[in-house]
């Protein structure tokens, strides 16, 4: 509760209150209470403003574009939410989706994290109950900003827990506009991460609180927070590994306590049982290698407890030492044997590729091309750290310094969270998101502690001249004496300069965040916007044009083959069955599509016939200069296809290790299905003034094969800017 705040005056409040102190120092007693009230009012209003700010900063996308769902995965989430609100929870839970992964289908209920959809549906139903007849799309669009606002509240309480209320307020303000978080939570970004970061931070906060108080109720709260996290995002694995690691560190550093024992045991056991209720997770907590660390630490806790008890019973230290040695060895031995047997018998599944690729950044590149092909799984560049964290990057080490200076169970936790998540953020771009709360919290400690130190310096200074002012010039002696002690005037000016510097930095941060949000992170990626020759805004709405064409003008049972990136969008917006989609659960199926795309037309035709494909959809940026099209993704199709079907060989598509589409391209490249579909009749088109026909603006070359004939496919539709091209697969010709 905000009411029982820290006894120490809060820096910002103190600053505001200082004029009062100066003007009326006579009735100190009555003022003290007033200051506290003022402080509370100030704190609540700052929090309220931060809450609103976090929400409205994320509405740029709605203002710039429209209230729409962004990107790829959110379309699946939106489609499932729609299903949930229309058909109810049990239908949703038992949903077998035959519209994706044709002919395999997908058991939706058992292969998704339902937290996000259930949350949105609950909000929707509540609003309807309150007679607000909103559309489910609006609820989905605004779920992420809403949860971002809630995250600021959690950040405040977390900051208060690990440092003080000032740090909490700064943390709330920092996280409200941090680009690393905004990138995944703008309005319309209806993805699991939107609620998961809230759940993650909530779980951590409640756990830290539980460790601090040793209270069962906080531990229970943390278990429920964990359950919500498990239901919302696969990133819960981070929690179930970080918390045991933290406990282990506390054990090693000799900080074992009954509080820790209660908190961890309750959280682990209850959290595990609750998590098993999510079908997609099931028994993984006891069967999968990724969750074994938590179990190991759980057992270790029991050994510790047991040893503690024995130590209490035995008064003989020597006897206890031998007992300790025996117990620890046997415990480790038993644990090791159990793990070995479990792994060998297949009861405990080994680590998954995704987990490996987190620990070893080069693993995915060599072994799992499908993970490596996703741009958000690439290692993070320094520039994106700078882009997403800005000044937090410098404040983070400073915050670590303050944390180490005042080490407690809570600060150890935040340090560990910060360091591990920052490592993962370096491995994968998208995990910047997970590190953001920690970075914000630690930076907030730095900011808060610095500002507090500086203002306290200023305030002690202000008091001296005030009391001495009556004496006037006569006080110079005393002041020179102080100068000798602490070199005060320099201190004072320095403090003011530093404070100004801090506020300058913070204001730069705010400007940077606003700019990044409005320019970089608010694009829905479905609608592309460009600047025209006269500075006017040109909108390329080709994706929706194509999807709506599919929805309206193809048979309802048509099967569409495309690269998996567009699968979710085709099912959600085009309402047609797809062969593969963004849920990359079956690598072979994706490889088959990759193989079809990289084969000659007649070979591809056989594959497409076997998959009942009616339409093929390709994305092509040659006319508009849109670079993330299928030709640029083509090498991944070759690699993924070649990973399963050795007939497809990457060197066949390269010339001297170079990927080309012009005259110098390899013959296989010039005649494969993807090339033909992208460039069909493109050779007749003049795309840029002063350039030959068939000039590809995305790659800046004249294409190598301008005379493309299609035998088994025909052009069914091409969007107005050629970004999406749809081909119809012809039925087989009659045999003569």
């Amino acid at each position: 509760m905000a009411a029982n705040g820290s006894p120490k005056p809060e820096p910002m409040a103190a600053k505001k209150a200082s004029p009062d102190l100066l003007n009326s120092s006579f009735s100190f007693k009555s003022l003290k209470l007033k200051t506290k009230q003022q402080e509370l009012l100030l704190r609540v209003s700052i929090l309220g403003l931060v809450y609103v700010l976090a929400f409205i900063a994320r509405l740029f996308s709605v203002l710039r574009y429209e209230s729409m769902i962004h990107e790829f995965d959110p379309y699946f989430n939106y489609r499932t939410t729609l299903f949930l609100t229309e058909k109810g929870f049990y239908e949703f839970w038992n949903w077998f989706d035959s519209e994706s992964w044709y002919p395999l289908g997908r058991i939706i209920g058992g292969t998704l994290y339902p937290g996000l959809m259930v949350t949105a549906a609950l909000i929707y139903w509540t609003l309807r109950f309150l007679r607000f007849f909103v559309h489910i799309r609006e609820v989905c669009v605004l779920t992420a900003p809403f949860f971002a606002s809630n995250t600021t509240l959690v950040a405040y309480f977390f900051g208060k827990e690990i440092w003080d209320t000032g740090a909490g307020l700064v943390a709330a303000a920092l996280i409200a506009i941090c680009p690393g978080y905004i990138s995944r939570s703008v309005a319309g970004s209806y993805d699991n991460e939107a609620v998961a970061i809230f759940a993650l931070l909530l779980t951590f906060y409640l756990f830290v609180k539980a460790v601090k108080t040793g209270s069962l109720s906080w531990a229970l709260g943390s278990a429920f927070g964990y359950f919500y996290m498990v239901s919302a995002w696969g990133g819960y694995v981070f929690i179930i590994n970080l918390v045991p690691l933290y406990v282990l560190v506390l054990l090693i550093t000799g900080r074992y306590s009954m509080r820790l024992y209660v908190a961890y045991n309750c959280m682990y056991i209850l959290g595990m049982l609750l998590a098993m209720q999510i079908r997609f997770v099931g028994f993984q907590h006891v069967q999968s290698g990724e969750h074994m660390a938590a179990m190991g630490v759980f057992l270790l806790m029991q050994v510790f407890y047991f040893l503690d008890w024995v130590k209490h019973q035995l008064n003989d230290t020597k006897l206890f030492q031998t007992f300790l040695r025996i117990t620890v060895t046997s415990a480790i031995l038993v644990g090791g044997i159990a793990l070995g047997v479990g792994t060998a018998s297949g009861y405990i599944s080994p680590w998954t590729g995704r987990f490996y690729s987190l620990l070893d950044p080069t693993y995915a590149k060599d072994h799992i091309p499908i993970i490596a092909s996703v741009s958000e799984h690439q290692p993070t560049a320094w520039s994106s750290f700078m882009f997403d964290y800005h000044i937090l990057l410098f404040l983070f080490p400073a915050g670590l310094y303050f944390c180490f200076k005042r080490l407690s169970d809570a600060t150890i936790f935040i340090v560990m969270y910060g360091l591990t998540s920052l490592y993962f953020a370096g491995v994968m771009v998208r995990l910047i998101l997970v590190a953001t709360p920690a970075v914000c919290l630690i930076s907030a400690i730095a900011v808060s502690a610095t500002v507090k130190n500086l203002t306290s310096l200023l305030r002690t200074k202000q008091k001296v001249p005030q009391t001495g002012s009556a004496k006037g010039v006569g006080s110079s002696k005393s002041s020179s004496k102080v100068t000798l002690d602490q070199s005060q005037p320099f201190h004072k000016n320095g403090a003011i300069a530093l404070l100004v510097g801090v506020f300058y930095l913070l204001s730069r941060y705010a400007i940077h965040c606003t700019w990044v949000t409005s320019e970089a992170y608010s694009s829905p990626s479905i609608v592309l916007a460009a600047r025209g020759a006269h500075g006017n805004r040109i909108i390329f709405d080709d994706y929706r044009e194509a999807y709506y064409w599919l929805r309206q003008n193809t048979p309802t049972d048509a099967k569409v083959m495309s690269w998996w990136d567009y699968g979710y969008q085709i099912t959600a917006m085009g309402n047609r069955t797809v062969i593969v989609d963004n849920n990359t659960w079956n690598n072979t199926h994706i490889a088959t599509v990759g193989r079809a795309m990289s084969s000659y037309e007649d070979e591809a035709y056989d594959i497409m016939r076997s998959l009942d494909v009616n339409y093929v959809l390709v994305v092509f940026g040659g006319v508009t200069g849109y670079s993330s099209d299928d030709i640029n993704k083509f090498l991944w199709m070759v690699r993924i296809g070649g990973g399963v079907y050795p007939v497809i060989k990457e060197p066949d598509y390269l010339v001297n290790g170079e990927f080309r589409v012009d005259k110098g391209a390899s013959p296989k490249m010039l005649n494969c299905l993807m090339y033909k579909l992208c460039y069909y009749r493109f050779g007749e088109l003049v795309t840029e003034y002063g350039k030959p026909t068939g000039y590809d603006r995305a790659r800046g070359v004249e294409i190598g094969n301008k005379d493309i004939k299609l035998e088994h496919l025909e052009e069914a539709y091409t969007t107005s800017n050629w970004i999406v091209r749809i081909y119809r697969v012809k039925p087989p010709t009659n045999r003569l």
Partner: protein
Amino acid sequence: MAARNWIFAVAVAVAVFLSLSTFSSAQDLQIVNAERRIDLSSHIVKAFLTLKVENIGKDPAADMLLAFPPTQIKNLAMVQALAVMGKKKKKTYLPLDVKPTEQPDAPNDAGYFLVSFATPLGPGETVTLEVLYILTHSLEPFPVEITQSESQLVYYHDSAVVLSPYHVKQQTTFFKTPSTRVESFTSVEPANRAGKEIKYGPYEDRAPYSYAPVIVHFENNSPFAVVEELVREIEISHWGSLQITENYRLTHGGARHKGVFSRVEYQSRRSITGSSSFNALLAVLPPRVNSVYYRDDIGNISTSHLRTGFKKSELEFEPRYPLFGGWRATFVIGYRVPLEDYLFEAPDGRRYLNFTFGCPLVETIVNKLTLKVGLVVLPEGSKDPSAVLPFTVNQDLQVKYSYLDIVGRTVVVLQKDNVVPTHNVPFQVYYTFKPIYMLAEPLMLVSAFFFVFVTSLAYVHIDLNIVKK
């Protein structure tokens, strides 16, 4: 189809001659001169029929019959009749009452409309009538499927002579085609073609129910924009605006598109490819329209332009893709107009809404139009809403729930099939209204907030701890 119509027409003709004698009652009138001009330039077929009617009986005639073959009666969207009064320069037109009627012994299911004269036609008197009738879905594409580069050819079936239960002394029929390209037309001598016009007649002294089937096969590339279903919702808010939402299900009703759609052909040789397709539509909206939006199931569509004017506003918009034969598009157009332009107070104290019926899209056929007028007042405030229209529609009452509604809003539902632009005429919905109900929802919100604050106040002051701190 063509063959069937032929056989049918012959059958009609035969039946007509056989059953001639049974229609003696209608013989009191005769048509001295009939001139028919049929405009085939768009997919809405407009026929202008000028009849000079004479009473040759002994008794004054109060009304006369217009007959239509059954193939036309089901596509007949509208029949209007005007009586021409006065001589050349001082001509005035008097609208006459026209309503569908049944004749017990109609030959071959011919349909009838009864035109009531303004004053009964005395024996020996003549009157000149201008009849306008509009046919939809009467142009039959042939060939049924065309490719992108072909232009669209259609059949039109009609009779060279006017179908009438009366004796017609002299008559002529003109068909106006959209272009000079006419593949063929049935020749019923005398018949000839000049430019865009085909002339049948003049024919002298045709007996009642004469029928001479003709088929005109010609090129028609006008946009065959057919709205399969249109749901217009008009929501009256007494806070000052009228919100109109129109849900369209549009299709291209012409010859079906076959095979390839080539973008390169479509954008570089626009004049010769896809000539029957259309990609731009025009909606005529009321003046002072604001907050116009144009979107569909998956979001906003950015290709639209609005021009507002004093008399009307024009919304020019494009569907996401050009529509070729058989292609569909669904979309929603919504807009807001100020309430004072459309809501008035009747002398008896009731309020009435005066708004335009029909579809705002120009040159479109609407197969099924549902107009929902939602009254944003509580039911007890709006007893017995009633609609007044110049033609018959199905009427119904519904209850709809919207923002902050507890009892729901009364919705007057008007339904009509086969609507053409000539149906865009004003209609009125009358209802009673008490202004006090406007305050219901704000008061509800205020009390809800009040409740929240009171509970939070109470919560702060109540100590729920078991142990005293």
